[in-house]
């Protein structure tokens, strides 16, 4: 009886080892069953018969014509606008208090300064690197940047 059991078991083991997977799912269509093949074939034929609506191509052409101009034109226009702005940007000398621009202290107020408080604005002095305007007790120093980069260390009189 044990021998018979062993024989059956060996037979089962053999059958177990001979089990192999069926055709690879999702593989070539030829390996599928007939119904699957025919279903897919029908769908392929239906797929091939699909055509876009006749007017669709004309709509695409029309949309293409109505598209805004290519972006490069907008870029060119922007560049031109920037260039014009740079050229026309007003170039005025920087007006800075003497203590910041040149390290010089503003001259102290004198009695004549106070006495001149009511006078009209006038050019008080013109130097190689600065222009001094005056209106009453207020002096306005217009410092011009040195062309060779040297700092101006002269003190105003």
């Amino acid at each position: 009886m044990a021998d018979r059991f062993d024989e059956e078991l060996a037979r089962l083991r053999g059958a177990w080892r001979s089990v192999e997977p069926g055709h690879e799912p999702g593989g070539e269509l030829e390996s599928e069953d007939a119904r699957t093949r025919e279903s897919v074939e029908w769908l392929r034929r239906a797929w091939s018969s699909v055509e876009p609506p006749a007017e669709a191509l004309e709509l695409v052409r029309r949309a293409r014509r109505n598209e805004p101009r290519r972006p490069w034109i907008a870029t060119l226009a922007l560049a031109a606008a920037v260039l014009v702005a740079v050229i026309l940007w007003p170039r005025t000398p920087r007006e800075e208090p003497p203590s910041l621009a040149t390290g010089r202290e503003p001259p102290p107020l004198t009695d004549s300064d106070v006495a001149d408080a009511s006078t009209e604005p006038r050019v008080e002095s013109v130097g190689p690197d600065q222009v001094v305007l005056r209106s009453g007790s207020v002096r306005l120093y217009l410092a011009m940047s040195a062309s060779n980069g040297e700092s101006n260390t002269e003190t105003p009189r």
Partner: protein
Amino acid sequence: MSRRPPPVEVLAALGCRDERVLDGWYRAEHPVVYRLCLGFLADSTEADDLAQDAMLLLLDKLETYDPERPYDVWRTSVVLNLCRDRLRRRSSRRRAEGVVHERAPLPTPEDEAHKGEVRALLVDCLEELTPREREVFVLRDLEELPTERVAELLDIGASSVRSLLALARRRLRSLLGPRLAEEPRG
């Protein structure tokens, strides 16, 4: 994998603004793009709309297309991404018209008289698939691209392509199988 050269129409359209040359490209590309939109969206109305957008987008991107790259991969990738965006915005799944669940014999696809019915049935079948299954089925079984190419396009493994394809085929078989036995010959 052999690489087919881009269609002549694509090469001619590259860098060309001549409307006649572009027209040739439109004629060659539009049917393919339309089918892809229909396949990925499973909706005729949306496919009509999106195919136009896709054509315009392709034309805009044509200047950046590298001819060293397979054209069909590039084109399909552009259309696929566009369709996926549209599907994400779609609020709910479209209700299938129920044509696929009828028991009448399948119409003959080549028969002009049944064109509308064939298209409705095709769309309904594709609508029964999940979006991923649909993408794989359209590219692998309908467009007949190799598994490796489909895997590259969808950025998934080849085994995933096969698994999704198997699921799609099984579902489609269950839909169309009962009607195939009665399909009229000829």
